[in-house]
């Protein structure tokens, strides 16, 4: 089973749009990408219990890579790990990759059947093409 992905953002609209962009790279291919975004009222915020649920839904036994936007999304994702069972928790990587750019690389790599560490590594490389092109 492929590695699952979870997108954590303060903004549901942002997460959904990032997933749409990443899915554009996977015409006709399957990939689990769960979203946990927005606060309980649908405003800007994050909810660790929703993140824990998304990780559980994304996990098929081969692990999950979680991408977060910034700030409290990271704190909530860490808190979500605390809510999960030990065996699930140790299959989860919280990635410091750039949310949008990292998700695209991670999605393509996960859909191709790469393992969790390779998917996470690809997410971390997310800025590489842009940096190489702009020389930044």
């Amino acid at each position, binding site marked *: 089973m492929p590695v699952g992905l979870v997108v954590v953002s303060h903004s549901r609209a942002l997460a959904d749009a990032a997933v749409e962009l990443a899915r554009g790279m996977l015409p006709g291919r399957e990939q689990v990408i769960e979203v946990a975004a927005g*606060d*309980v*009222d649908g*405003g*800007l*915020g*994050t*909810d*660790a*219990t*929703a993140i824990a649920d998304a990780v559980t839904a994304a996990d098929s036994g081969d692990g999950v890579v979680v991408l977060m936007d910034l*700030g*409290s999304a990271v*704190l*909530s994702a*860490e*808190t979500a790990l*605390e*809510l999960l069972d030990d065996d699930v928790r140790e299959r989860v990587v919280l990635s410091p990759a750039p949310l949008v750019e990292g998700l695209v690389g991670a999605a393509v790599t996960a859909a191709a059947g790469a393992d969790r560490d390779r998917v996470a590594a690809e997410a971390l490389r997310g800025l590489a093409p842009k940096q190489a092109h702009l020389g930044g």
Partner: protein
Amino acid sequence: MVDAEALTAWVREFARLVHEQRDELTRLDSAIGDADHGANLDRGMTAAVAALDAQSAAGPAAVLKTTATTLIKTVGGASGPLYGTFFLRAAGALDGVPDPTDPAALARAVRAGLDGVVARGKAERGDKTMLDALGPACDALDEALAAGKPLDEALGAAAQAAADGRDATEPLVARKGRASYLGERSAGHVDPGAASATLLVQAAATALAGRG
């Protein structure tokens, strides 16, 4: 005796103070953050009180655990996982303790909560966060109890230490959380989380008075 009922009273009093100070907390957050700390915490604590009301008789650890999971779910901002972790670790520290109603057990629980905030947020004291109020409060509580002071007095000292720590955040430059994006421009404002953490300690002093 710091039993489940006493802890519930603490949570309620914290919710009451947060609701009362909601606009002030948001005003502080509008200077160095995103102007939502009052709304975030009021939503979270209102939900926590509702969850405790809905819950049938539970032990001390369960009261704190319910508060934790509700905050984690409903606050939305950084203070959600941080206060959530505070209550979660505090609950863990009370769990299975022979006499959780002993003031020393309360002090250990609060210390575990503080350590949780540090582990979660990776802030140090002086970074202009809630830690700058919570940390000194914990220290004052421990010192007072170690010196044989009654719980009332120890909590009073803790509340004073929290308020002093909160006020001392004003000149600091934020190094954690949203406010850190402002760099030097974060100086000159009290940290909203330090202000709400002071309410948490004041609520303990009020709600647990006479329970030692």
